[in-house]
């Protein structure tokens, strides 16, 4: 809760000598930065703006805040609290560290002071955030009369405490997953909470996008349905970092009109943003110096200048690579003592993470390399510099990550180091995109049939459905009839009663990655290891296979496992290399041992797409656009061994894990053979790949989404050609539903039934939602196809390379002009789809 407002003596007085600014000026002039800073943006300091004290607040609260040094409220706090006390649902949208949490803490405490029976429920996307918040809530409550019982309720809560929380917790702090499986299906144990619920707080609202958001919307439908049953009508307070459509997202998630408070009144010191483009190594191919190596130089220098720095890397493995480099440059003072630079990512054990967070707050950790795990509001204090190695994927994440640097009184630095990925190069050349563009929109689809159907089962388990009753805004009579036919519910007396002996909530995972994880086990019995025994689910187990005293060192989700811990992979964990002896896919375990080698491994995946049903199209003559349902099969085929530092490939090997299927919606463009008759085969091939790259980039900008949310695929002989109208005759539609998937939600073992192969196909480019069932990106691309194509054309035209580089259409083979070929295909599409 960083809301402590120290009213400055004179807010307009010139800042005192700012050591950080001086250090940055010096660094800017040093050869390290020469020719690399493509653009420097300076965000000026902002003075605080004070709003009126909401008179309806209990007077004791004012005293309690005064005791903590808070005299007044910023404008956004005052507005939000006023609205909440007036019974309005509110979403507060302000940057990191602007004191958002006071906006819900004060009304919640107010309700409790006036009625000790009043309850509230706080939702945070992760367990770590929940624990932070309870601590800071208690901090204020200490100054109030009475004793507030606030507690986290999640997987880590001991059984003895659970009972007490259920009966007497005034403020129950939990995460959506626990609410979904641990609370709602057991609502009769929570009668007091549901009867007396005044406030539901949903913090980090922007985290609930895509499939997670669609799930959350349904969990909230279930929650509010139970509240209605128990006769309460809670006010919802949501908080979000800056996104493009907070009110719309909140409205879609909560399905009520929500008041949006976005007038930030918190002060801020000056911030500098550097757009850092590594020098070109090969101009013709558009290859630039590796962003990781650039980050290594820059972060090492920042830490040397005593600026506390956080570096964000895109993937878990790049975190470890960068960390390895930095730890060599800033080694630990003594063996066994952690050095000044630490890593942080999911897969580290909780104790390890808590220690790193504390180290950041007290300043003993001078640098940290993290995935986006530290992007959310975990309390690590404010740092001097944030370095983003590669574009995090969304404008919102970029600002969240840059916002980790930014103190109240000294200048701070944010650096975006571009990789040579197309999007990064586009952004470093057009800084205005990041600086002026509104952040992306959060899209959710609560009515995604898979998500809705699954939660409807859970809801029917919780309370019988009346005939004609809606589930949130969704009309569900058809689905309930469907369940009745399957014997899941019993339809009688005008109601649908749950009658299966399953526990439906358990079959639903709210996050793609939350399915069963693969546990990583160190089989070496080295007694001088870090010495943390198995934790969490494996506490007390010896781990490992029979006869080995394996130690669990971490875990990866199933989706990432084939990529990170395949047989023979080099898995890096806290800067330490491990060789994967074996990935046991059935048992979900990877057996590893420490090793010291000069390379790491990169896995390659390949995809194929089959069209199942066409919802729209084909429209157009030479090039036809369509939208419909597809099956994307993903298979991880091989890995490369890459030498550290030089990043050259020194070997490869096969990966054998089962294929995974994704059913989703896609948008695709298919060309008739005549339309591309003037091009040679190689040109069409390269052009299609170029189209896929350019369209991917354009679609991410159009849909304002993370690049990982949209997948692409290009095929010379696609099955979705313009001639084959309607769905291809395939055995897919008549295969009866089977057991729940074995893999990540939406991925399942491919069916044995063979599909008729595309005997004659058409050159096709697909864009698909990487979420089962889709959340609406493909639809949007289909609707706004013209705009999409013109953005793609701009991307192709805007590049400085000779004949296609990774920044625009991808590298082309010798003798083929990739950019020209791509441009040709884009033009054909634009002409025929005008």
């Amino acid at each position, binding site marked *: 809760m960083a809301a402590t407002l120290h009213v400055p003596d004179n807010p307009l007085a010139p800042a005192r000598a700012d050591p950080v600014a001086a250090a940055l000026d010096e660094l800017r002039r040093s050869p390290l930065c020469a020719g690399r800073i493509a653009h420097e943006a300076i965000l000026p300091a902002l003075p605080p703006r004070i709003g009126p004290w909401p008179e309806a607040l209990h007077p004791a609260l004012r005293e309690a805040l005064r005791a903590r040094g808070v005299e007044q409220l910023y404008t956004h706090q005052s507005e939000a609290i006023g609205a909440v006390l007036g019974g309005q649902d509110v979403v507060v949208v302000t940057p990191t560290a602007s004191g958002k949490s006071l906006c819900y803490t004060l009304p919640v405490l107010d309700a409790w002071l006036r009625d000790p029976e009043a309850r509230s429920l706080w939702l945070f996307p992760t367990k770590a955030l929940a624990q932070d918040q309870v601590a800071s809530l208690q901090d204020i409550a200490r100054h109030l009369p009475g004793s507030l019982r606030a507690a986290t309720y999640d997987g880590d809560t001991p059984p003895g405490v659970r009972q007490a929380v259920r009966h007497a917790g005034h403020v129950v702090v939990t995460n959506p997953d626990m609410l979904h499986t641990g609370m709602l*299906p*057991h*609502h*009769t*144990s929570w*009668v007091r909470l549901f009867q007396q619920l005044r406030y539901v707080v949903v913090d980090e609202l922007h985290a609930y996008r895509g499939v997670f958001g669609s799930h959350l919307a349904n969990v909230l439908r279930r929650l509010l349905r139970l509240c209605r049953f128990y006769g309460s009508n809670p006010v919802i307070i949501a908080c979000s970092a800056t996104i493009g459509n907070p009110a719309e997202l909140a409205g879609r998630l909560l399905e009520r009109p929500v008041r949006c408070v976005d007038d930030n009144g918190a002060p801020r010191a000056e911030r500098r943003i550097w757009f850092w483009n590594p020098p070109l190594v090969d101009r013709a191919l558009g290859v630039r110096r590796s962003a990781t190596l650039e980050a290594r130089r820059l972060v090492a220098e920042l830490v040397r200048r005593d600026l506390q720095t956080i570096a964000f890397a895109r993937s878990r493995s790049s975190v470890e690579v960068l960390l390895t480099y930095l730890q060599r440059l800033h080694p630990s003072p003594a063996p066994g003592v952690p050095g000044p630079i630490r890593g942080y990512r999911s897969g580290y054990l909780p104790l390890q993470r808590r220690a790193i967070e504390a180290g950041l707050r007290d300043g003993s950790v001078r640098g940290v390399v993290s995935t986006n795990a530290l992007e959310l509001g975990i309390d690590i204090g404010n740092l001097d510099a944030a370095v983003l190695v590669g574009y995090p994927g969304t404008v919102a994440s970029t600002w969240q990550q840059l916002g980790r640097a930014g103190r109240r009184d000294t200048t701070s630095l944010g650096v975006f180091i571009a990789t040579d990925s197309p999007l990064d190069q586009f952004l470093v050349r057009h800084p205005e995109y990041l600086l002026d563009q509104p952040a992306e929109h959060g899209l959710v689809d609560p009515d995604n*049939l*898979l998500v809705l*159907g*699954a939660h409807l*089962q859970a809801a*029917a*388990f*919780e*309370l*019988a459905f009346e005939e004609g009753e809606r589930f949130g805004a969704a009309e569900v*009579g*058809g*689905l309930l*009839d*469907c369940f009745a*036919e*399957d*014997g*899941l519910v*019993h*339809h*009688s*007396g*005008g*109601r649908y*009663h*749950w*009658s*299966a*002996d*399953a*526990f*439906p*909530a358990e*079959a*639903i995972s709210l996050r793609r990655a939350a399915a069963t994880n693969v546990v990583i086990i160190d089989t070496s019995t080295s007694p001088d290891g870090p010495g943390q025994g198995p934790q969490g689910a494996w506490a007390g187990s010896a781990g490992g296979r029979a006869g080995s005293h394996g130690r669990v060192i971490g875990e990866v989700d199933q989706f990432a496992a084939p990529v990170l811990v395949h047989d023979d992979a080099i898995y890096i964990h806290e800067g330490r290399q491990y060789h994967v002896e074996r990935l046991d896919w059935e048992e979900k375990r990877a057996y590893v041992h420490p090793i010291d080698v000069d390379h790491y491994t990169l896995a390659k995946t390949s995809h194929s797409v089959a069209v*199942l*049903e066409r919802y729209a199209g084909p429209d157009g003559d030479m090039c036809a656009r369509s939208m419909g*349902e597809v099956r994307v099969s993903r298979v991880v085929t091989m890995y490369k061994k890459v030498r550290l530092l030089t990043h050259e490939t020194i070997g490869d090997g096969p990966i054998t894990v089962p294929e995974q*299927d994704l*059913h989703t919606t896609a948008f695709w463009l298919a060309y008739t053979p005549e339309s591309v008759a003037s091009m040679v085969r190689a040109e069409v091939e390269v052009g299609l790949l170029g189209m896929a790259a350019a369209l991917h980039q354009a679609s991410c900008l159009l849909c304002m989404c993370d690049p990982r949310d949209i997948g692409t695929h290009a095929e010379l002989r696609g099955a979705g050609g313009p001639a084959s109208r309607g769905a291809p005759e395939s055995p*897919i*539609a008549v*295969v*009866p*539903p*089977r*057991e*729940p*998937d074995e893999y990540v939600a*939406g991925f*399942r073992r491919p069916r044995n039934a063979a599909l008729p192969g595309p005997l004659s196909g058409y050159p096709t480019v697909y864009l698909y939602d990487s979420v*089962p*069932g889709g959340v609406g990106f493909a639809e949007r691309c289909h609707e706004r196809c013209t705009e999409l194509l013109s953005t793609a054309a701009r991307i192709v035209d805007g590049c400085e390379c000779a004949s296609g580089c990774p920044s625009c259409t991808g590298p082309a083979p010798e003798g083929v002009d990739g950019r020209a070929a791509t441009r040709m295909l884009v033009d054909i599409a634009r002409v025929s789809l005008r």
Partner: protein
Amino acid sequence: MTVAVSIDDNAAAARLATVAGLREKLARLGGLGGAPSAARAGAAAALRAEHRARFVAPPLPAQPGFEAEETPAGTAWVRRVDVDLGPLLDAAGAQTLGAAAGLLRLVSAGGAYGPLAGEPVASCDHGRVAVLDIESLGLRGSGVLAFLVGIGVQQGTTLEVHQVLLADPGDEAALLTAVLDRLEGCAALVTYNGRSFDVPALRARFIVNRLGDRGLEGRPHCDLLGPVRRLFRDRLGACTLRQAEIELLGMERVDDVPGFEAPGRYRAWLRGAGPEALAGVVRHNELDLCATAVLGARLLTHVDGDMVGPVHAADRFRLALHLERRGETVRSEGLLRDTVTAEAGPWDRRAAFRLAARLRRGGGPEGEEEALSLLRSLWREEPADLRGARALAIALERARLLDEAVAVCRRSTRLCEAMPAWRHERMRGAPDGGWPADWRRRGERLEARQRREAKRPRGARVQMQSVLLGA
């Protein structure tokens, strides 16, 4: 009891089309998590074909033996029989069915098992006792439907069995009302595993049907699983009701329908599978009620009367612990002594340790002496038992027999250094920091003390010792 809801043909056709479309789409997307298994889908498909022609709810099924009973909340279906438990009681070695007060005392002693902290047990003495057992769909969560609730009211050696059946899941409130009527005026509930299953499941249904939880909350409740675990876990292992019947009551069920089949049979019955599908479940529920009632009587006889033979050393030991918790120290001590003399391991050793601890606490000088000799012989028997050795070392130190204590320490230190680390790490009651360090510290402290004492004049030492022993 046949109610058919017929819907206009066009509307029915439209609904069918919607359902078929949804089903197709779901199948394509990969199916829902909770979708039925292949076998169940097959059965569902057959039924679908049957009902597709018209969108008609299947007729309400009937069950012979159950009669309609009108309640304010609708019709409930009730079966009434009286079962004479006399022969079963004889086989189990009990005279009569347990009275409320005695049964409640079984669970109130430990505190952890008794829901009636502070409630005067004696006040329930003459009240009626009701045995409760439910058959349900599913095991966890507020949505678990109790479709058959059995209540057995104890009268002498007879059990008045009332079974209430849910013929239509829409009539749940009627079933619950009928159940409440029968629980009214019962002083105590007896169940087997009801604390964590039957009672919370019923309570959840009361809440969902807006009947509050007046019927169950605060009602004195004796869950026999607790005492059975405490008294007989060495014999029974998992302590299921079935095992308890075989081991403790000397009875075995014939042609019983296992409990896990109940949900499937009920669903089939709802869909018109006929009375025989459910008959086995009704009988199973009745047997559960009878067995629970007799088991209560058997436990009371074991605890308050003569133990029913054959009696094992383990039974004596467990009963001794139970009585100790209830404060009946004299009987408990007698049982511990019996266990020690029975020489059946490992209970004789455990009883001996327990006895020694008791003697040292409240046995006076003779007790202290006896405790020491018990611990000594335990140690001689099994010097590798480090917990035993520690108990002896502490007792010897208290009694100022420092030379002997030091000898115990030395031997134990040597032993645990010779032992592979994993053995003493896994030993119960291992001290923080591990056994070897603990023994070294203890040894050093004792030797230092030995040296200090040696400097003192001999007379003072004897005097000190006699003061300590209370002489």
